[in-house]
């Protein structure tokens, strides 16, 4: 295939206070390809793409950008959009109090005689919504959609721009396999039309299934650029991590001991739809040293189930027993006291405090333990934070760095540290590896295993079936808020999980 270079970035250098995020990076994309961009958390992938999209203005970095051989100077995103670049951002959320249609057309409202034409926009939005496979009305408020549905809106938004270069920064992190497949079929279609799709992802499976080329970054530099057929998964991983990696899933079965938690008949009402339960009459038990996976389609109510257990949202009924004793959980504080920890699904809204330092964030759930008479024990805090900080390999100049300055994956590690600090009896992880690089993923799996060995019980919600299958001792499958099935490790296959999840298994 003779393809022509559509975009080149030359000698790009970008500094943040105290960090050299990009160091003389060269990067190019061809028309009509799907180009994967891989690298560890903090390698500089998002930063590079933000420069391309004009999100960082021309004055904020060194180097130049050529689009079809012409040098471009983007001062804002509108300019780059005009040059045919559209981007789906990793960290930027949308306007939750506006409708789907509004979010899709924000900044590019369609006007008729100077007046915004809502009718047209709603119709047009409907088409794109259908294209990305979203089941929602254009007039729906974004707030009422789940995270994955919101992501689909973002994708729809990018598609409306008819871009020549489409950048997707970890688009599939919040998506299920079906949704991802849908997305990739769209990307292949775009590719055929000669559009360059740049895909940032930590899921190497996706890369090999869909990409034409892959560029690997490490520490702000491009390490390699190769066609898929010239490389292998192991090679990419070692280029990313800078060393050889053993298996991703270091699952060893820890001795599973007595029941530590029992959940009985949890029901949660749907926040908006009347007479509908988002979680209905779910019961399960959890043993020490066990990793319990929860699978299901998006919207199955997995998050709501654990949120209700943790007291984050109100449950309509249900009982909880920890160590055989009944505990009343009305708020997260009650759950934490009972020894439960929850790494939430969306770190931005309820996982981190962006304006505070890493240290403050890690200590946040353990303030009482790190203090005496209400006064923080500074040395103890620092020591424990430093220990976790280095154990998790968080990439930052130090523990006093503000969380909002970290890359997405490193933020996730901080959230994990926050809960590990508490040494919980029960650790609930809702999509724990979302947006995390392979190295760190393996690290998190290792930690899960070692925690399990210590006798901690772990619940893991995951939409990545390989991860779910390899890491769990047992998998619960939810479908439409009800418990659809339970699979022991031995009988766990992708097919079985999907069968239950789509409610075929129940018959």
């Amino acid at each position, binding site marked *: 295939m003779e393809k022509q270079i559509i975009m080149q970035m030359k000698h790009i250098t970008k500094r943040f206070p105290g960090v050299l995020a990009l160091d003389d990076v060269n990067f190019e994309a061809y028309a009509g390809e799907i180009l994967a961009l891989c690298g560890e958390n903090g390698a500089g992938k998002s930063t590079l793409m933000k420069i391309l999209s004009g999100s960082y203005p021309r004055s904020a970095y060194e180097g130049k950008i050529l689009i079809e051989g012409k040098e471009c100077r983007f001062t804002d995103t509108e300019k780059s959009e005009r040059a045919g670049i559209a981007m789906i951002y990793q960290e930027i959320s949308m306007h939750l109090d506006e409708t789907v249609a509004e979010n899709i057309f924000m900044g590019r409202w369609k006007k008729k005689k100077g007046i*915004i034409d809502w009718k047209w926009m709603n119709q047009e939005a409907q088409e794109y919504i259908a294209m990305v496979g979203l089941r929602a009305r254009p007039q729906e408020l974004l707030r009422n959609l789940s995270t994955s549905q919101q992501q689909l809106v973002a994708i729809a938004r990018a598609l409306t721009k008819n871009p020549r270069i489409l950048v997707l920064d970890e688009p599939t992190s919040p998506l299920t396999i079906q949704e991802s497949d849908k997305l990739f079929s769209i990307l292949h279609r775009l590719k055929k039309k000669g559009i360059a799709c740049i895909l940032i992802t930590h899921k190497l499976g996706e890369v090999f299934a869909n990409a034409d080329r892959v560029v690997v970054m490490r520490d702000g530099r491009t390490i390699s650029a190769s066609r898929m057929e010239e490389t292998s998964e192991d090679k990419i991983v070692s280029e990313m991590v800078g060393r050889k990696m053993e298996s991703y899933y270091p699952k060893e079965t820890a001795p599973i001991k007595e029941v530590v938690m029992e959940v009985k008949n949890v029901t949660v009402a749907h926040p908006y739809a009347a007479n509908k339960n988002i979680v209905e009459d779910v019961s399960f038990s959890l043993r020490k040293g066990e990793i319990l996976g929860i699978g299901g389609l998006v919207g199955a109510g997995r998050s709501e189930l654990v949120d209700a257990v943790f007291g984050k949202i109100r449950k309509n009924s249900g009982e909880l027993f920890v160590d055989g004793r009944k505990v009343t959980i009305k708020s997260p504080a009650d759950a934490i006291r009972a020894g439960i920890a929850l790494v939430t699904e969306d770190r931005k809204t309820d996982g981190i405090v962006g304006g505070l330092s890493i240290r403050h964030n890690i200590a946040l759930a353990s303030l009482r333990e790190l203090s005496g008479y209400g006064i923080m024990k500074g040395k103890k805090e620092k020591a424990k934070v430093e220990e976790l900080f280095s154990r998790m390999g968080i990439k930052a100049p130090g523990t006093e760095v503000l969380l909002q300055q970290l890359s997405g994956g490193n933020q996730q590690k901080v959230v994990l540290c926050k809960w590990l600090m508490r040494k919980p009896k029960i650790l609930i992880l809702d999509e724990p590896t979302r947006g995390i690089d392979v190295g760190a993923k393996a690290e998190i799996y290792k930690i899960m295993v070692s925690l399990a060995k210590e006798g901690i019980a772990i619940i893991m919600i995951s939409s990545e079936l390989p991860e779910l299958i390899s890491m769990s001792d047992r998998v619960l499958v939810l479908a439409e808020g009800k418990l659809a099935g339970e699979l022991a490790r031995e009988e766990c296959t992708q097919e079985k999980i999907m069968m239950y999840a789509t409610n075929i298994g129940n018959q």
Partner: protein
Amino acid sequence: MRENSMVKKVFSSKEVGILIPWILICVITSIANPAFISFNNVINLLRSVSITLIGSIGVTFVLISGQLDLSVGSIMGLAGLVTGMFLDKYQAPVWLAILAGLFAAALVGLFNSVIITKFKIPALIVTLGSMYIGRGIINVISKGVPFGSFPENFKQLGQGTFLGVPYSVYIAFLIMAVGAFALKYTVYGRSTMAIGGNMETARVSGIHIGRIVTLTYVISAVCAGIAGILTASRLSSAQANAGTGWEMTIVSAVVIGGTSMYGGSGSIVGTLIGVAIMETLTVAMTMLRVDAYWQKVVVGAIIIIAVGIDTYRRSKAASDKG
């Protein structure tokens, strides 16, 4: 928001909530003192509401865009004073005097926005500073002496009526209609909402934050200016202390009307009701023969209860539906 009739669209459930306490206040006062619904009183009330409303619409836009404007009280006073000075001291024609007042107001708005957008100084500080500066300029111009020899046609503006309804009511209605329309159906309005909802998202969506914010402060200032000129006309006198503390009344009225102090959501109709509550309370206290020394206690309590009813209703609506 579904595709409903126009009426339903305007009075979406959001605004109806805060309407209830206002109706309660009106009903109770009318029963206790029928004079409350006398023609005279209703017209006077309409007049006060209309003038405050004009200023509040500008501030509604400011709050929706996630900004803050403490200078509206000073701007109101300044515009009235400048217009008064042109009429009284320079014997200028009415149109010129009004233009001069509005120009002075717009200038303060422009000053606010330029400092805020170019130098990234918090809006609270900038508009506090311009509140001081504006009040200072008023003092320098007037030395406390009001201007007051106005031609009859200028006085008509704030005192005259058409079909028994004060002109200011028509003006306020017009501005309100334009405002409500602009918020929903113009690029400016949508951009304002977007900026207030999430500035970063708005920025990467290619919205020119600087321009929109600038426009918003100028609109706010011009609205305050119109209110100031109408007040001067209504009183036949441009007072040096006109508008002192007005910014708090207005921000409160807007927030009572359901606009968020932190941007991203709000409604013009809500602001109308918020203003109506604040203005009605002033008169209702006297009409209900509440002792002057107790009035503030009652007003404070009613403000909290009014918004409380609204909040309760909304949370109930949410859980009922769910």
